[in-house]
């Protein structure tokens, strides 16, 4: 779907809104769109403000004095930021790739009408959408049974199989892969795995791309798994780093050289904590903002791929 391709009212000029109404709607959307961007602008402006001005005047859209001290401070000792970034990127890439492969491998057999156990295995995955054991047993499985606390696997494994996406992929396979194609490939002597990799996957790129984008976003934006499973500062993701920064600005400066440099530069022991906090968010959301125009285009396409029916 090309987003918003045609007007609701159709081509008939008689069926158009009156000029004031039309104008009103346009103004309304301009205001709402501004409301979506303004909070981000405020954060960016605070991050490039001068610390003492912020303390005096509060957060301002147009700061009376600009200063990049917050960013200088952040990159003085970027060890933690670089580490967290690496972990986030690694978890996102590995998680998305693995989850796509595993979900597609599961979705294909349950999409095949001739597979007698398709119904059972469809229910097997669908049921996880209806009922869950809750946080406590789930946590104990990962921490006591598998002993995955403080490992990267704990950040990847829980999000690998999402029932909703499995069912979406299954529906796509069912509706777009003609049974006759699979049948003729079988007659030619192709094995199930060959059929899957050579015929089914290449035909399913649209749905796979959509699910991959959703999973990328899920992994990148996840902070809950870090909150629950990670207790060592060295292993936290960017999202969790932002959360910790909010709680405790000191967290960024466990390295004393950074603190010393700030002291030398500013002559006070106080970190530019207000601005550094906001600079941390700007550094943290950078990739999402750049990827977002591209992402949203495919999201819109993907949301219309097909509805699920259990």
């Amino acid at each position: 779907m090309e987003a918003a391709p045609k007007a609701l009212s159709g081509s008939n000029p008689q069926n158009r809104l009156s000029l004031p109404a039309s104008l009103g709607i346009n103004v309304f959307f301009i205001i709402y769109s501004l409301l979506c961007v303004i909070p981000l602008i405020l954060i960016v402006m605070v991050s490039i403000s001068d610390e003492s001005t912020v303390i005096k005047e509060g957060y301002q859209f147009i700061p009376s004095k600009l200063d990049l001290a917050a960013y200088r401070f952040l990159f003085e000792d970027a060890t933690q930021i670089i580490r967290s970034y690496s972990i986030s990127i690694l978890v996102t890439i590995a998680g998305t790739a693995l989850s796509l492969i595993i979900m597609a491998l599961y979705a294909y057999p349950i999409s095949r009408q001739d597979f007698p156990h398709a119904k059972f295995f469809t229910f097997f995955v669908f049921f996880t959408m209806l009922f869950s054991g809750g946080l406590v047993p789930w946590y104990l499985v990962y921490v006591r049974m598998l002993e995955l606390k403080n490992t990267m696997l704990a950040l990847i494994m829980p999000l690998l199989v999402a029932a909703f996406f499995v069912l979406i992929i299954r529906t796509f396979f069912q509706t777009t892969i003609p049974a006759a194609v699979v049948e003729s490939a079988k007659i030619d002597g192709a094995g199930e795995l060959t059929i899957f990799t050579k015929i089914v996957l290449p035909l399913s790129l649209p749905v796979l791309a959509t699910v991959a984008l959703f999973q990328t976003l899920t992994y990148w934006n996840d902070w809950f798994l870090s909150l629950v499973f990670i207790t060592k500062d060295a292993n936290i993701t960017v999202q969790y780093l932002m959360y910790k920064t909010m709680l405790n600005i000191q967290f960024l400066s466990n390295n004393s050289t950074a603190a010393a440099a700030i002291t030398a530069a500013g002559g006070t022991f106080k970190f530019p904590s207000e601005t550094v906090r906001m600079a941390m968010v700007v550094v943290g959301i950078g990739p999402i903002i750049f990827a977002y125009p591209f992402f949203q285009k495919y999201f819109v396409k993907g949301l219309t791929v097909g509805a699920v029916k259990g």
Partner: protein
Amino acid sequence: MANQIAEAVTAAKVPRVKAIAKVKPQLNVFRKYWMFYVMMLPAIVLLVVNNYIPMFGIMIAFKNINYADGILGSEWSGLRNFEYLFKTSDAWIITRNTLLYNSAFIVLNLVFPLAFAIMLGEIKSRFAAKVHQTIMFLPYFLSMVVISYLVFGFMSDEHGYLNSSLLPAFGIEPVQWYFTKEVWPYILPIVNTWKSMGYFTVIYMAAIIGIDDEYYEAATIDGASKWKQMTRITVPLIMPVITIMTLLQIGKIFNADFGLFFQVPRESGVLFPVTNVIDTYVYRTFLTVGDIGLSSAAGLLQSVVGFALVFLSNWVVRRINKENALF
């Protein structure tokens, strides 16, 4: 007599023959489709570990867990954990908060995105409509940690934009937002609607675009007003989408958005009476306080009631219109 015995014997024999006949095709299925099982294996293992084993773990709620004996070895405590839970005032508060907030979210996530989708369709410049739609989608891509910062930027007690600039401009005294209970039942729904607006708008817009133009053409000829067209054509024709989206949310009415209630109020204890929901309660009693009995009891109630609600809502929809039911 002999006849009867013979009958009984054959009767007893028949099931055995049947059983053998049943096993054989099963084996054939495995032989024919063995590759399918290999393909499904990774996901099966993950579902068992991540979903099914924890389901059996709900027995924790009926036990007096002690780590030395393990989960299976710990003694049963009957409904003791639930008794404790209902003796606290929290049980009522978290249930009320979860249900009320989620009900508000369901209504808001229907009314506003639907209205936005219809209005976007009325914008003549397709380019402008697309730009608006793209920008509206932005908050959906931000994590709750970031959203929490954005809210903080406006509402911080000391430096927030509201307290430092906006309120003084109107001569209003600064408000200690993170210590004022009364405002949060409005702030949280606003933040939630703001974040999910783009997502739901796209879904309803896609449904509206699927409507045949001729309906509107005919309505125009009959002199139907815009409002009439909306209530008599647009909304009825996208009813299936509305029902499915609402149903999906009603099924999850007992599951609060943990991020929203955990990150955005910044864990301000003063606000707990209006921000504590089942999910945050389970998290805090389990991982902060360390009370495994209380938290698992609350978690189990959430799962069971949530499960019942999915079926109930689906049943209601089936009664009204079978086509729209989820399963």
